[in-house]
């Protein structure tokens, strides 16, 4: 136990926790936007998988990481458009259509991988960007300011989205459409247009999250995300539909996961119990949900399609 509390191990654990947090923070922030406008997107996991494969395949073919990230984003947006058509225009039951998108992403990414790549080949990873001055702070510098650009981008999105939701006209429209679409509609806000925008943005971030994951790991394989998209959805509830809360939940999850990994490699957790310890993040989130769920209310119109005059 004592060797965990050395400077180098602690810094490495926190840094790896932040890295692990990034993909589901991105996905969870996207899901937050959708849910605030009243759309539940359960297909995040599938979109992440497609984004991850798109990015991985592009990097493999072109060698350009930026092009890979761009493809991840575009794949996410395309899936977002389809999701919006199904959820908003066709008014499908979102709890199920999301499972459909998940299965589609799961199968399609695997199918394309087997057909186009076959055997897994590693791709290079994004360079670490050390922020000048801040990166030189002892301990904190290594923990917080030596990461790749996507990590910074994910965390920078937190205050940005919080401000957008709280202070801009667009954010007000998003919240209005999620709480009382009929009232928003009567004031001339296009419910459908707002929901399309949030769903496309949400899926864009899910695609980016997949790309971030594939590039971080430098590999693609069947079911690469292994449930991270579903965890991201849970974190939205955990964070009570607020970007800062979502970040807190994501960090809790990431840090617990990183600590478990670190304790495993240090032998603090015996090998035989390592699978049991891997449950910790999920169990902690469930318990937290029970506590949180009683205090916060979800967007009133979550997962309910809007019908004028209904």
């Amino acid at each position: 136990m004592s060797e965990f509390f050395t400077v180098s191990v602690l810094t490495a654990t926190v840094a790896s926790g932040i890295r692990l947090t990034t993909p589901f923070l991105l996905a969870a922030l996207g899901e937050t936007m959708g849910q605030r406008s009243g759309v539940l997107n359960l297909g995040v996991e599938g979109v992440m998988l497609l984004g991850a494969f798109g990015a991985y395949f592009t990097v493999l073919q072109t060698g350009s990481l930026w092009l890979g990230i761009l493809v991840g984003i575009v794949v996410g947006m395309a899936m977002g458009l389809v999701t919006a058509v199904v959820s908003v225009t066709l008014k499908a039951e979102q709890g199920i259509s999301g499972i459909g998108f998940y299965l589609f992403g799961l199968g399609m990414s695997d199918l394309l991988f087997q057909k186009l790549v076959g055997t897994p080949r590693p791709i290079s990873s994004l360079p670490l960007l050390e922020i000048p001055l801040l990166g030189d702070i002892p301990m904190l510098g290594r923990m917080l300011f030596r990461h790749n650009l996507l990590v910074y981008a994910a965390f920078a999105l937190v205050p940005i989205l919080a401000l957008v939701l709280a202070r801009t006209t667009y954010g007000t429209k998003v919240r209005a459409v999620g709480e009382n679409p009929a009232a928003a509609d009567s004031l001339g806000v296009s419910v459908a247009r707002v929901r399309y925008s949030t769903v496309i943005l949400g899926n864009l971030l899910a695609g980016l999250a997949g790309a971030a994951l594939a590039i971080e790991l430098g590999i693609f394989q069947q079911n690469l995300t292994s449930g991270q998209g579903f965890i991201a959805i849970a974190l939205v509830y955990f964070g009570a539909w607020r970007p800062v809360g979502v970040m807190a939940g994501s960090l809790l999850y990431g840090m617990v996961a990183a600590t478990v990994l670190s304790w495993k490699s240090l032998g603090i957790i015996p090998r035989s119990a390592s699978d049991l310890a891997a449950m910790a993040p999920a169990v902690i989130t469930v318990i937290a949900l029970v506590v949180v769920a009683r205090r916060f209310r979800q967007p009133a119109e979550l997962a309910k399609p809007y019908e004028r005059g209904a």
Partner: protein
Amino acid sequence: MTGLRRRGRRRDLAGSLAPASAAAAALVIGAVMLWALGADPVEAYVALFGAAFGSVDGLAATAIKAVPLVLVGVGITIAFRANVLNIGGEGQIVIGALTATVTALALPDLPGLLLIPLVLLAGAAGGGLCGAVPGALKAYFNVNEILSTIMLNIVAVQIMNYLLRGPLLDTGQISGLSRVPQTERLSRQADLPILIGGTRLHAGVLVAVMAAVLVYVLLWRTTVGFRLRAVGLSREAARYAGMPVRRTITLALTLSGALSGLAGAVLVFGSESHRMVTDGSATGFTGAAGFNGIVAALFGALHPLWTILSSFVFGGLLVGGNAVQRAVQVPSALIVALNGMVVVFVVSTEFVRRRTRLRPESPEGALDTGLPPEPGGGAEPLSPRTQGGDG
């Protein structure tokens, strides 16, 4: 009452056309995907249907694949009818399989006549518990069931990996080098009996059909079933009518979980190796039956008996997927992607929306259950006559 019954039948008949048209659409989508991947769709489909339905062995394999889909699917139907979603099928299957496995390991000498019902019950109990937790959390603590079932899926996989790599690991494996995470071969007494000699068709098929019939009777011929459906159509109205809404919601997810758990037990004791094996993921053990069961239930128009038929078709797709891979070199992951598209397609159509959404859109739909058409507005207590007649 007879008038109401007849109307109900007509609606079920209309419902039976939906799976057929959705299946046709699925085949067209699949053909386009095959064509896009540079494969001959006709050749692929001939291989698919030949493998799945063209021989006795194929039919037996299809039926075996259909069993977990039927069990999960009718469970999903119960949940849906009570207007709760159960996305936790994967976890419930895994936990049910584990409790059944532990039971068989604990009672190696029990004769099959006792052991088989016991392990099936153990599986149902494990899965039921795994459904009762999110059910109670939803009913009493307002925790979203989609969320809690998803999280329990993750927890269940870790429990499985821990048990199969540790306490339940085959003792023969510990000395060997390979250490495949699996249990020892379970008691032969617990093997599900083979129904037709020479094939693998086992008694799990009978379990699935019986379960589907029982769920049908439960939902449409008992008071409990009436409550489940009433709560599904309008919680407010059901509460106003004095029904125990919270207990009913918990029950819906418990039953749904129990049926998935039963599927887990059948997967273990009907498997060729007669042991529980993991590759570290839930899908590795379940074959994604927890999700595909949702597809089967939707295709079965959320009706237990139609779910048997749709599960058989989907079982055939799963069996045929491997044949497609051999015949036209398109990976069988195609079937998973296709299932996903079909789900999206089905829920996007008017039909399922009307059945799964809270508000019945036509007064005729509401008449079926004797509930007022608009929950929320102007809800009136159910007349005792309607309640008695249906229950």
